[in-house]
């Protein structure tokens, strides 16, 4: 199961943080990176995020596949943004400076290029941190940490249940699909699209019906053990907070404060070098 989520077990300061800390940091970090479009802060976030990888002992090799995926996605999105509105930068920054003596709808402007640079930076500011979170957080601890940051324990328990049953359902899906394929259900490119959708539901129906039985069995078992009768419950995977936990939360909170302050000072979410 841990393989599924790319969790890499190692001894490092980041692995040592509690799940709750990492989750809070992730939320604060994402909020900080989402609110701002200030180039300077984005650069700081991107560098800081990448600098944390050696601290967490995660190498490029561990995440190369995910990196490729992200890069393809990033290039595609950047090209799409340019194709759809080559003058988005002008709208945002309020000036229009044509480059290379060209003009016309698709001619590059300094504002557009600057906007796209920010757009790419924004990816680089958020994604390294998420990758790091994925690689260093034990999924089982994740559910416990949700409860710690104030999510009600029944919802946290749903998350824990989902994590617990993903491998089971995956195995069951595989079995049903093999059995159906042995009976001639075609899922590959050879069949037409409609046929493929229909054969997918031929696998889905037994899978979902058996899952409904599973829901019945599990909820009966939980009810027999009086789940939900008390206001609190304890978690096997929960850990105690250490000094480093508090420090990391404070640092991430500061980043968010900086991001909000910059938005306030700039008067908008963008840092505008074109108007002086």
């Amino acid at each position, binding site marked *: 199961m841990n393989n599924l989520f790319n969790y890499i077990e190692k001894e490092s300061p980041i692995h040592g943080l509690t799940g709750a800390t990492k989750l809070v940091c992730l939320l604060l970090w994402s909020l900080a990176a*989402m609110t701002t479009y200030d180039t300077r802060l984005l650069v700081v976030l991107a560098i800081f995020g990448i600098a944390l990888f050696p601290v967490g002992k995660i190498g490029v090799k561990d995440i190369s596949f995910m990196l490729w995926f992200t890069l393809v996605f990033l290039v595609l999105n950047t090209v799409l943004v340019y194709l759809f509105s080559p003058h988005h930068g002008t709208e945002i920054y309020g000036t229009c400076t044509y480059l290379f003596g060209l003009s016309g709808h698709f001619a590059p402007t300094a504002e557009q290029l600057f906007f796209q640079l920010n757009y790419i930076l924004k990816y680089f500011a958020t994604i390294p941190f998420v990758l790091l979170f994925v690689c260093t957080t034990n999924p089982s601890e994740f559910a416990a940490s949700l409860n710690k940051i104030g999510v009600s324990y029944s919802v946290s328990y749903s998350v824990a249940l989902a994590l617990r049953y993903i491998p089971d359902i995956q195995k069951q899906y595989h079995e049903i699909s093999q059995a159906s394929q042995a009976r001639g259900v075609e899922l590959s490119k050879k069949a037409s699209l409609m046929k493929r959708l229909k054969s997918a539901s031929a696998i889905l129906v037994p899978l979902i019906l058996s899952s409904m039985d599973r829901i019945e069995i599990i909820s009966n078992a939980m009810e027999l053990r009086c789940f939900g009768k008390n206001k609190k419950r304890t978690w096997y995977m929960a850990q105690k907070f250490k000094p480093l936990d508090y420090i990391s939360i404070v640092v991430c909170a500061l980043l968010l404060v900086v991001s909000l302050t910059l938005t306030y000072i700039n008067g908008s979410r963008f840092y505008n070098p074109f108007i002086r």
Partner: protein
Amino acid sequence: MRKFTVKTIVAIGIGAALFFVLGRFVAIPSPVPNTNISIQYGLLAFIAAVFGPFAGALAGLIGHFFIDFSYGWGVWWSWVIASAVFGCLMGIFSSKLKIDEGEFGVKGIITFNVAQAISHLLAWVGVAPCLDILMFQEPVDKVFLQGITGAIINIITTAIIGTIVCLAYAKTIPQKGSLKEEN
């Protein structure tokens, strides 16, 4: 109104697990290169119709979060939230259906599909692009094109798969008064 019971909690967990497995491992190649048809929304519509808006919203939220999480390309909150919105709306619109009592006739099929079409449109053309614009300041045309394409594909897959699953599930439940006295 359905109560928030232990069964709902379990349904959220299992629903999210199913959503994850279908979204992550069941890739049906589509005619457009590099895009796969996501069949998990058919399942989510079913879960929402049977267990209500709360279960639908949370199963979508958790399941979609885990899919993003496991790919490691970053969590796209705008689309994760849109999944949750779809589950919630679907649960609200289809609250009159009684699939868990074995009733799913022609009227049920129509209600189910109208509900899912409206929910998909609201979630992918309404919520997801707006959040994208809010968070990333992406150009309006691009996000709406993405949203509309997503909505259309999802409506078609949900119409086929969701309906088949609901029909099959309703059949397994004995209806009220289905027993006859023999003379």
